[in-house]
């Protein structure tokens, strides 16, 4: 194996790791020995003369086909870094060539699914603006090489020499796995199906009838689904830790599938502080982040989007507020006095009135919404793409209006809901003006940087 630290711009085409095809068919191959054993023991019992079972044939055929396909796709895939682009070529019949400009890289993840981990491999996934995730996948490199490639791509993306070592990280927080489990189990999405199932079982025991058995089956299905979702979240956020480095935030997490993600500070479009209903008993919160990305189109994109980008899945409120202040310095995380919507908003939004609030200063726009769980979205003004004011007939009658703040993030927008009409108007122009000032400041700063 070549020493991993030889990735330099303008170098030769490189291949992925030769074991890569195995990862995709790993599960199928792993099943074959079991099936073989099963068919032999089964064959002896039925005295079939040891003829190989048809299932084994099908599985082996699938595995061999998968291996051949994987090998061919490995053979025709190559990648390199040249002229400020990451270039990837793949495809035998339909040749595809991708060029990802390094300066457009938004984040780079290193992901190791279970099969890849067993084989000592890891995937490098480059997320860039204006492209689906499918384009920037390097699946797979050796586990030793992947972090090096990530560090070098990040260094090049920041305009540094490729040999610049990855800046050291400073651990901000880690999440205790017990607390993670506790936090996930006290979400309404677990408790409600659980209580429904309990109620249905009790009803079925008190009065055994067809209807109550149906109820048990239905609620059991719901409960099972919530268990699956919760287990997946636990698997995703196991051993969660967040660190801060010069190039951005680093997230390490995962039980079976381990992920090492980097989110550059400049790419953060918005953060959201979420406080689910029951977590208020423990004083816990969650901090989510939204980065710029394209709409989901491919299967791989969906897989990557499945997990919410969260900066911390569960932590005490103090810690979350402190973390928020690291990401968004000098932000006001609590709604200041006078920031709530007027009382008459209760008529338009009776279920969320108690949480509605919006406040802003010259750097951030913040808005709190929510029915049972409160969600505070913080948008830096220099990330604002457009501002919209909207009011429907009911809102007009109550002299209310909603101000939406659009960012390049895809997950959620900040919305100052049901403000007084005059306030909303003022807010619209204030945000537009501050966003303009922030853009100007940034462009003059960039200009000065270029000159120096």
């Amino acid at each position: 194996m070549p020493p991993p630290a030889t990735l330099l711009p303008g170098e030769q085409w490189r291949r992925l790791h030769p074991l890569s095809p195995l990862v995709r068919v790993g599960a199928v191959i792993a099943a074959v020995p079991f099936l073989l054993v099963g068919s032999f023991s089964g064959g002896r019992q039925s005295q079939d003369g040891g003829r190989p079972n048809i299932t084994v044939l099908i599985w082996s055929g699938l595995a061999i086909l998968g291996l051949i396909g994987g090998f061919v796709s490995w053979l025709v895939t190559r990648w390199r870094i040249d002229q400020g682009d990451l270039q990837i070529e793949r495809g035998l019949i339909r040749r595809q060539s991708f060029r990802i400009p390094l300066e457009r890289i938004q984040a780079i993840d290193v992901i190791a699914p279970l099969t890849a981990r067993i084989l000592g491999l890891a995937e490098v996934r480059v997320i860039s603006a204006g492209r689906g995730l499918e384009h920037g996948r390097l699946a797979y490199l050796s586990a030793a090489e992947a972090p090096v490639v990530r560090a070098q791509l990040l260094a090049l993306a920041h305009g540094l020499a490729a040999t610049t070592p990855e800046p050291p990280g400073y651990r901000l927080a880690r999440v205790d796995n017990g607390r993670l489990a506790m936090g996930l189990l006290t979400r309404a999405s677990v408790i409600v199906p659980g209580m429904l199932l309990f109620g249905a079982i009790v009803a079925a025991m008190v009065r055994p009838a067809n209807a109550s058995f149906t109820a048990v089956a239905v609620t059991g299905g719901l409960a099972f689904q919530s268990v699956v979702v919760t287990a997946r979240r636990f698997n995703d956020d196991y051993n969660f830790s967040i660190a801060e480095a010069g190039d951005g935030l680093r997230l390490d997490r995962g039980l079976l599938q381990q992920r090492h993600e980097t989110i550059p500070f400049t790419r953060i479009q918005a953060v959201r502080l979420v406080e689910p209903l029951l977590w208020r008993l423990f004083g816990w919160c969650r901090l989510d982040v939204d980065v710029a990305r394209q709409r989901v189109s491919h299967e791989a994109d969906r897989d990557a989007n499945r997990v919410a980008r969260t900066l911390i899945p569960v932590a005490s409120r103090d810690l979350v507020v402190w973390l928020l202040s690291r990401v968004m310095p000098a932000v006001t995380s609590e709604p200041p006095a006078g920031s709530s919507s007027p009382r008459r908003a209760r008529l338009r939004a009776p279920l969320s009135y108690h949480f509605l609030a919006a406040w802003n200063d010259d750097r951030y726009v913040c808005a709190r919404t929510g029915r049972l769980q409160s969600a505070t979205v913080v948008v830096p003004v220099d990330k604002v793409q457009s501002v919209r004011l909207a009011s429907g007939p009911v809102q007009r009658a109550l002299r209310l209006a909603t101000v939406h703040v659009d960012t390049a993030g895809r997950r959620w927008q900040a919305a100052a809901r049901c403000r007084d009409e005059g306030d909303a108007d003022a807010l619209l122009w204030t945000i537009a003006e501050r966003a303009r000032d922030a853009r100007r400041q940034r462009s003059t700063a960039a200009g000065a940087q270029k000159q120096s």
Partner: protein
Amino acid sequence: MTFRPVSPRFWLARQAVLAAAGVPLVAVAALAEAVVGGPGGLAILAGVVVLLAWTWIVERGRYRAWGYAERDEDLIVRRGLLFRRVSVVPYGRMQFIDVSAGPVDRVFGLATVQLHTAAAATDARIPGLLRADAEQLRDRLAAVGEARATGL
């Protein structure tokens, strides 16, 4: 701030569409009334006429609500009668600008200018501009957008 209205021809096009739908409707109702007769038929005819008149009034309000203003740094689009909307799109954030024209638009020589930013939710759209005006507006916006372009 003064908003520029959309072309009066947009209102003409809207009325034409309304007439294309309304005239046959009234004709059918009148025919039914003539054949069947009675107060029921008359009520239906009156209902259709009132509905059409109401639609005409709302449509006129919606037409008058459309407006846009080009400021130094951003474009403002105003619209909606029942659902009022005001969008502010900074020139520096515009990624691309569409000029499109549907079949009715083409008959009346109209076009729609739509602005796109990196945010999917941006809905700045100006319909009912004369085609030459729309193209001029697009070129103007593209020019200032390029001069002020900022990244994400």
